[in-house]
Structures are given as structure tokens and as C-alpha cells.
């Protein structure tokens, strides 16, 4: 593993609101091709942490670097241009466009053509959009209006959009929220496959422990803003502190029969 370059490095990330520490001194690293899950009970600071990584929130202190380049406090659109793709808890796509156009916009942006007032978008990056859609299994839906898609398909479309800038790092905020159990497995398998094939690092937060323990290479556990455990699924599962927290929350993280919370 140590030969694989460090993709994301987070050092001493801290954020507080009115004296309350939402995130305190969080540090971790993520390597290319690795799938890392960020978990923790409600209010543990997952979202704050995640938002600081993708630029929607500015940390009080600490550093975030992607492939050695500083992204701390940069705007989401700048971080995206540094090779970070992302998906949202509630999928964010463009409902008034076709599926293909959704991906084309991202490709056009990646190609720095946004202020081109004259060309026809329809001809821009058409094939590449098709390839990305094929990759996520949405090729057959390319000409469908996005607003008519089932939610699972919207999620897959969002993944295709997120891949448009050939990202090195993919940030996924609760990728399976709101999906049926079978779709969750499919989406995560798809994500894992793409990550391995293209050597993309993936960081995701998740409520559904089934998803976490099945797909994560490594797990970070946050509680009250601090990192309390880090390691492989087995290590985390065996961690007494983690157990205590989740039991205290009344949630069994390894309860396989549990219906995932839809957040």
C-alpha cells in the first residue's frame, strides 16, 4: 500500500460554531484506489467534515491537500478543477435536460468551454458523454429527460456527472440514501469497480452499516467532532469505544437485518 501515492491528506481539521466544536483536530489520509468510509452517529461532525473537504465550508484551522496541492478554504468549483468529483446526499442533477446533456454540461465545463456562446452543445463531447453513461449503465437512457428518471437512475447519472472531470478523488455524501436495498448494492459495486479500474480514491459517508462494512477498505469513526477509531472493517467492528457509542445511540452497526435509515 505504501507505494501508492497519498491522494488526500487531512491534518488537524477544526471547525467550531459559537464555541461548540463541530470538528476537532481530524487528520487522516486516503490513497489512490482506496475506498474510505466516514461514519459516526448523528451530530458527530460527518457533514461538517465532509463540507470542508468539498469546499462548502471553511475550516477554522487545519489543512487539506489533494495530491499535494492545498485545497483548504477553496471554493467547490475550484476543488473540482483540482480533480475532485462529488455526489450529494440528495442527488443533484439538472432536471430540465436530457440524461446525455447532464453529462455534456460537466464535460463542457471540464473542457473550459463554458463561455462559448456560439457552438452547439449538442455536438460537444457527445461520444464521451455516451461512454460515461455506458460506464454507469445508463447508455440506454441517454436521450431521456432527466426529470423522468427513477431515483436510482438519477443516482447513477450523478455518478457519471461526477466522473466527467476524470477525478482522482470522489467524495460521496451518503451515496445510497433514499435507495432501495438492491439498488444500493448495485450502486456501490459499480462505484467500487470504477474506483479500482481507474485508481480513484473514494471517500464516502454512510448511515447504512451494511454498505459501509461491505464496500469500505478502511473506516473512519467520528464522535463529537473527533476521530475515535480508524482501521479496517474488522478492526473497527472490534473497537469497544465504537461499539459503546453505537450501542449508546441504540443502533447496532452490524445488525444486518436493519433497514437503512434514509437520513
Amino acid at each position, binding site marked *: 500500500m505504501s507505494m501508492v501515492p497519498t491522494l488526500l491528506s487531512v491534518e488537524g481539521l477544526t471547525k467550531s460554531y459559537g464555541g461548540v466544536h463541530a470538528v476537532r483536530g481530524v487528520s487522516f489520509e486516503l490513497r489512490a484506489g482506496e475506498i474510505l468510509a466516514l461514519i459516526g452517529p448523528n451530530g458527530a461532525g460527518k457533514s461538517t467534515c465532509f463540507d470542508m473537504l468539498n469546499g462548502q465550508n471553511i475550516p477554522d484551522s487545519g489543512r487539506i491537500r489533494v495530491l499535494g496541492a492545498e485545497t483548504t478554504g477553496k471554493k467547490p468549483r475550484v476543488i473540482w478543477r483540482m480533480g475532485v468529483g462529488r455526489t*450529494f446526499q440528495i442527488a*443533484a442533477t439538472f432536471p430540465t435536460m436530457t440524461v446525455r446533456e447532464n453529462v455534456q454540461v460537466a464535460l463542457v465545463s471540464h473542457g473550459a468551454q463554458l463561455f462559448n456562446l456560439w457552438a452547439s452543445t449538442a455536438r460537444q463531447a457527445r461520444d464521451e458523454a455516451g461512454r460515461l453513461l455506458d460506464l454507469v449503465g445508463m447508455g440506454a437512457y441517454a436521450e431521456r429527460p432527466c426529470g423522468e428518471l427513477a431515483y436510482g437512475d438519477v443516482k447513477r447519472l450523478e455518478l457519471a*456527472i461526477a466522473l466527467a472531470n476524470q477525478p482522482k478523488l470522489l467524495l460521496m455524501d451518503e451515496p445510497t440514501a433514499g435507495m432501495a436495498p438492491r439498488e444500493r448494492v448495485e450502486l456501490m459495486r459499480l462505484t467500487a469497480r470504477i474506483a479500482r479500474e481507474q485508481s480513484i480514491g473514494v471517500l464516502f459517508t454512510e448511515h447504512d452499516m451494511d454498505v459501509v462494512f461491505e464496500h469500505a477498505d478502511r473506516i473512519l469513526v467520528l464522535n463529537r467532532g473527533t476521530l475515535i477509531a480508524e482501521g479496517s472493517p474488522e478492526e473497527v467492528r472490534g473497537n469497544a469505544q465504537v461499539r459503546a457509542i453505537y450501542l449508546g445511540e441504540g443502533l447496532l452497526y452490524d445488525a444486518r437485518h436493519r433497514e437503512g435509515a434514509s437520513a
Partner: protein
Amino acid sequence: MAFYVVQFLTGLASAASLFLVASGLSIIFGVTRIVNFAHGAFYMLGAYVAFTLTDRFSGAFGFWGGIVIAALVVAAIGVLVEMVLLRRIYHSPELFQLLATFGLTLMVEDLVVLIWGPDDLVGRRAPGFKGAIDFFGQNIPSYDLFLIALGPVVLGVLWLLFQRTRWGVLVRAATQDRDMVAALGVNQKWLFTSVFALGVFLAALGGALQIPRDAVNHAMDLRVIVEVFVVVVIGGLGSIIGAFVAAVLVSELNAFGILIFPKISIILVFLVMAVVLIVRPWGLFGKPEAPARRTPGLTVNPWRPLTTNERLAAIAVLVVAAALPFVAGNYVLTVGSEIAIFVIFAVSLHFLMSVGGLASFGHAAYFGLGAYGVALLAKMAGLPMIACLLLGPLLGLLGAAVFGFFAVQLSGVYFAMLTLAFAQIVWSIAFQWVSVTGGDNGILGVWPEKWAASPSHFYWLSLGIAALAVVVLRIIVFSPFGFALRATRDSPLRSEAIGINGKRIQWTAFVIAGTVAGLAGALFAYLKGSVFPDNMGISLSVDALVMVLLGGVETVSGAVVGAIVYKALNIWLVSQTDLSKLVLGGFVVLIVVAFPKGIVGTLEAFMHRRRKSSSSASSPLLTSRIESAE
């Protein structure tokens, strides 16, 4: 010193009425998300009805009873309007309610003249409050003191109503999250109706209380509505405390502004509103709004460029339109030119509204800037017409670049209000800066040169530029930039996450729209041979909005049709009847209720349905089912 105290108290008295009307508007907006343009009309109706009642019934009881009954009567009219009209259009695209209430306002303006006659009416003085009280040698009207006391009392009553009653709690909940209230199983219909009734009651009460100090007339509504919008926006939409503080602020600005800047007191409040919106986009007491609700009617049929056949048809129709000079006389051609110019103006706003999702309430500013650009270049620099037509719109571009930069930092109603404020500022400059703009008397003698002077030539020029503008804007819609703009409109979150700088994209769109509007204004100056401040007035901005909504805000080029229908109808009605506002208002209301998608939107939906049903009719499954049924 006593003078300043009295001046302050006088400001407070004006604030009371303003607060009543503004709080009503704010409450209605908070719960129903309707920007009630007719609020001024209800205010005016309150004054008219109160005039009649207090005139009819004598004595103190007759006066105060008349005031309250007038407000109740108008509130009942409000309920009727809500149930008959607004209930049908709550789910129409955003701003459609504004269009409907605008139509209503037009109708009321003509109706009050029909009912109460054209004269200014002077109502009774309030019994017991006729004189003035001496304050260190300064006189304070006792009625002012009454109003000063009334403001906080009404504020208190509203506060109790919202804090201490179940109804109030529901209203507050609805203001914060409408879906939640629906989920609670509350009868939303009646909640909306009652809120609307309360809002209208307050407006009418505000109007009725004016009769001892004002002259009741048919222009009261517009006078108050703009000021009320300003108050509500400064205070923060949905905030009653905000409305109160802003009403005091605006009234004191008026009271003291005339001492310091007697000549620019009209723009003072707009300057303050612009500053407040730039510094605190949600008003002094407003809360940042959750991202605007997804417009329920938002089309799911993605836009597409015209097919080859459609293109040929469009060209054919353009050729037919270009043949008009061979069959029509000069008047028709001049009207044709005017319509073509308004097509340009409307499509420029349509571009901003429907592609960019930015509904500007002050788009006429850029139209007017283009017109003034031409007039100044032609009259002062003596440039030839072609040069003026090319350079004049640059003034629109410049204005749009400066104002647009600030405006696109906001969205939704706040964007609309900031653009309105900017337009008012520009209008005031044209109105006040007499040495350059000629003030109200405008700039005259901006007539086209010989080659374009004949009505047919000017018509071809206007038609050609209109066609060009429509084509160019369509090309931009389908360009990468157009997609980026739509992406920003559809999902600011996602577009930011794919590297799109939404503000810059929107700013660019604003500048494009402003420049095209400036081009329309430039042509307009030559068509009319003159420019006037009302080339950038509120009513022109509203006209453009109506054209866009009429055509269909969810379409690519619906504004073309909206502009033609509205302008042709307007010119025709104004020429045929003195009650043009009544008829036009009625037409607008009818269109809103019958065709909430606009004319083109409705046609498109119809075609889409037909295409769908015809394709499913030919599907083998359906055919076999029909066969088996036989």
C-alpha cells in the same frame, strides 16, 4: 430642536399607514409565497369605500365604524379574489400570481373611476382629531399622534395573534416550511384564505385611515405599492417586525431626506434598498431562504433546437412578415415596427428569466439606457444613425454590467427587488438630470435618417434586427454557455460542483440581456423620434414581464408570441377604448387562469400530449387490446 422632534413624529405618522399595508403584504408573501401586486389596489379600495361610508354615516361612530367596515368589506373582496382566482394558480410557475394580481390592479384602476368618478375625493376629518397640538411652537396634528400610537398597537395585536393563537402558530409554521403544515393535516386552503383576508384587511385599513389626510384618487395604488415593496424588502419578506422597522426607516428618510437632499428624495429610499440588499440580501429582519422551491410546473421536456422543417417554416413565416409593406399602410407598418421592437425587448428578458431563472423587475432600465444612449449620441455627438444604433446599446451593456454584478449575488424575489431599485435609480437620474436628459420633457428630434425613415424601411430594419436577436439568443441558449446558465438555474449546488462559476455565468447573461434590451431601446428611440424617462419606468418593466409570462416562461422563445399578442392587443385597446386597463387586466387574468403555462407553453403541452397519445395508439400492445375488445 423642537422642529426635528416634530419632523421625526411626522415621519412616524406616515410610517403607521405604510406599516399596515406592508405587514399585510409581508404576511401574505410569508405564507402563500405570492407577491401580491394588487395590494395597492386593495389599499385604494379601502380608501374609496371608507370615503363613501364615512360620507354616508355621520358622527364619530359613523366615521370610525365606516373605516373598520370599509376594511372588512375590502377584506371580503379579497377573500373572493383568493377563492375564485388565486386558488387556481398557486401551483402555476412562480410569478404567475404576480401577473394575475397585476391584471387585477389594472382592472381596479378603471373600476374605481367608473364607480366613484374621476375627481379627487376629499374625505372627512377624523372626529376628535381635527386640530393640532402645540409642541414648543411647532404644530403636530392630533391625527398624526393617533397614527403614531396605532402603529405599535397593530404591531402588538399582530404579535399576539401570531404568538398566542393556534392559527398564528400555524401561520408561522407555514411561513417557515409550507410542506410541514400540509403534512400536519391542516386545511391549507383555509389557512391561505384567512391569511390573504388578514393581509387585505390591513391594506384596506391602511388606505381607509388615509382619508383624513389624503385625496382619494385612482392613482393611489401605484403610489403606495412601490413604496410598500421597498419597505417589505428592506424589512425582510415575511417579517412583521421588519416591516415595522423598515416603514419607520423609509418614512424618516422621506421626512429628513427633504431637508438635506430636497431634490433627490425620490431616489433616497431606492438607494437605501439597494444598499440593504447588497449588504443584507434577506432584508434587515428576514431569514435566508432555503433554495427556491422547485417550480412545480417546470417542464420535463428538455428544450431542443428547431428541426429542419421547423426552421424552414420559421423562415417562411418571416418572409410572409417581411411582405407586410406590400399590403399594409403606414400606420400598420409603424405598429409592426413597434411590435418587432417589443419582441426584441421581451426576448431579452425572456432569456434572463427562463434560461437564467432570474426574473428582473427593472429590465426597462436597460431598454431606456439604450434609448438614451442613442438620443445623446445623436443629439450631442451628432453621430450617424448606424453608429448610434451600434453604440447606443452599449449604454445598456454598461448599466447591465454594473447593476448586474450586484443583482446576480441575489436570487428570487430579492433579485427582482434589487433590479427594481436599480431601475428606479436610473429612472430618477433621467428624470432629474434636466441639463443632460431634458428631464421629464425628454430628448426630442431623434428621427431616423432618410434610408430608414419610411415606415416600410424602418419596419424591415426592426423586423430584421428582431429576427436576428431571436436567432442569436436561441443559438446562445443551445451553446455551452446557455447550458451552463440553465445548469446554474436548475441546480446551483450541482453546477458549482462541476466547476461552473454560477455568478459569473449569470452576470454574463445579465449583460447579454441588458445589451439586447438596449438594442430594442435604441430602435425605439428612432421609431418615436424621442426618449422620455418612462422608457425606463416601472410600467414598461412590468409590460415586459407580462409578455414573457404570457408567452410561456418555460419555453425557448415564447416571449416572441407574448410580445406580439400583448403589444398588439395593448395598442388596439388603447386606440379603441378608454377602459383599456379594464379589458387588458381582464384578459391577463383570464390568460393566467386558463393558460397557466402561457400561450406557447400551452400549445407545446398540447402538441406533446397529442404526439404521445398518437405514438401510444400505434403501439402493438394497445392495438392488440383494441382488437381483442372487438
